[in-house]
């Protein structure tokens, strides 16, 4: 129990961020029209591609002789990049079509 309390104390900043972000995330897209549901989902999909940062850190810290770690990290970087780049490009393609009619 004291462990948990300790841990909360150590990470209070992070916990505050999490709580505020939950409210912000809900607030920020609260008024989206149904037309934009798909592009918004796709855009959000690209944004959670930030995992790539974690993948880069894993890769960058891996021991150059530990091929398992290198392989895992490399795969993570490839997949993360696919998520980020593919996500933003697909979203842009969807939205490009909305723009034309204006």
């Amino acid at each position, binding site marked *: 129990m004291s462990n948990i309390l300790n841990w909360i104390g150590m990470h209070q900043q992070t916990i505050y961020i999490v709580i505020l972000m939950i409210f912000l995330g809900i607030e920020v897209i609260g008024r989206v029209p149904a037309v934009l549901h798909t592009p918004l989902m796709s855009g959000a999909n690209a944004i959670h591609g930030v995992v790539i940062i974690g993948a880069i850190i894993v890769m960058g810290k891996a021991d150059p002789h530990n091929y398992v*770690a290198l392989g895992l990290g490399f795969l993570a970087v490839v997949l993360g990049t696919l998520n980020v780049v593919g996500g933003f490009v697909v979203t842009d393609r969807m939205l490009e079509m909305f723009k034309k009619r204006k």
Partner: protein
Amino acid sequence: MGSLLTICYLIASVTFILGLKMLSNPATARRGNLIAAGGMTLAIIGTIFLYEDDGVYLHNYGWIFAGIVIGGIGGTFAARKVQMTAMPEMVSLFNGMGGACAALISMSEFGRISNKMGLPPTVTEGWHVVFYPSMIGELLIILLGLIIGSISFAGSIVAWGKLNGRMKDIAFKGQHIANIGLLLVVLVMAGYIVTIAGRESTINPVHIPLLLSEPVTSTSRVLFYFVFGLSLLYGVFFVLPIGGADMPVVISILNSFTGVAAACGGFLYDNKAMLTGGILVGAAGTLLTILMCRAMNRSLLNVLIGSFGGATAGGASGAAAGRKEQGSYKEISISDAAMVMSYAHKVMIVPGYGLAVAQAQHACHELEKLLTEKGVEVKYAIHPVAGRMPGHMNVLLAEADVSYDNLLEMEQANEQFPSTDVVIVLGANDVVNPAARTDPSSPIYGMPILDVEAAKACIVNKRSMKPGYAGIENELFFRPRTSMLFGDAKKVLQDLISEIKSI
């Protein structure tokens, strides 16, 4: 240097928030996407060159850049090549990649952490005592990231398979109970791994003999892979029974899952950009899921419990019974349809997935122009969930340069149907099924529909009499005012166009 990276992350976080905000407004959406992409690029480049841990910079640059180049080219290529109709699958696939990435990060981190656990406790007393309790938190986060990431990955792949028709809905009796059981097993195992580590940390860590700590960590290592495997399995079982028509909602849920998995990574590395981005998507994705459900007038629980999946058996027999009493439908020829339409005052086009599959949006726009030249008022009635995803039809029609003013949302369209002479339904089915209003036993009962029956005549274009995506029969086709025009949407539209031109 570290503070420069902090600034990069700060900017990235702000662009994510701004990007999401702008994405929810049609006028700013595209810019919002680009801004978020810019922030992401900054965060990635910053991480590669500025990240340091205890003064040590990252290495293995060759591997990192190779990974980014491969992923970048692959991602761009896939996203550029994909057909507009296959967009939802693509999003699902990319989402799965993100989930897998999060799971892989957890795996590598577990490897690192379990190596540390096995270290002989001779280093320094101070180091160990401080280290262990915080490690339990880390372990918890690693496991959470692993579980959520794997579920998201496996689920997304199944959703992808279902959307492109490679996979069928599979449901067996008691599946929900089995699913809950599976999830419980995963959680208990994860809990056990943490308790093992916890037990070690409560005994004064300095006195743990190596002999004791070694087998313990190897048990947790085995358990860890079990957790991974079972999470994947759960992801598959989670999505399998849910009907194909509900996939957009499922993708949206999995999307927010991946967001949370990414946030776990943020927790682990104390990385604010990952944390804000992940949680933001997790929260926004959850709300978006609820909004999508609301657009279909269904509850999230209803989607997840899979009333579509559960009702397929009942729906099929019901449909068979319905077919008997409804009797026959009537067909209309191309030339008759062309005639009716060109002498109408007002024509309403109801596009659906059939139009998307046939890539008929351009032909559709051409028909609209042609009729407008003849003095016919032409409008499109867009159901919020027409196609495979909310907004799918708007995107497709916008691609074909259809003016935004001609697209009517469901409420407006329903007001105008009574004054409409001809409605032409192009490959839409469930969204015009009157059973949603009249038949409480129907799985789509309660979903708002386009009231095409209110119009004077209704022409339905379909490839065959097969039921729609929800697998239920449509009474509309047997109504006296309805006539069927069979064939591929694009072919039919082209024939209609040439027929109208020759009148």
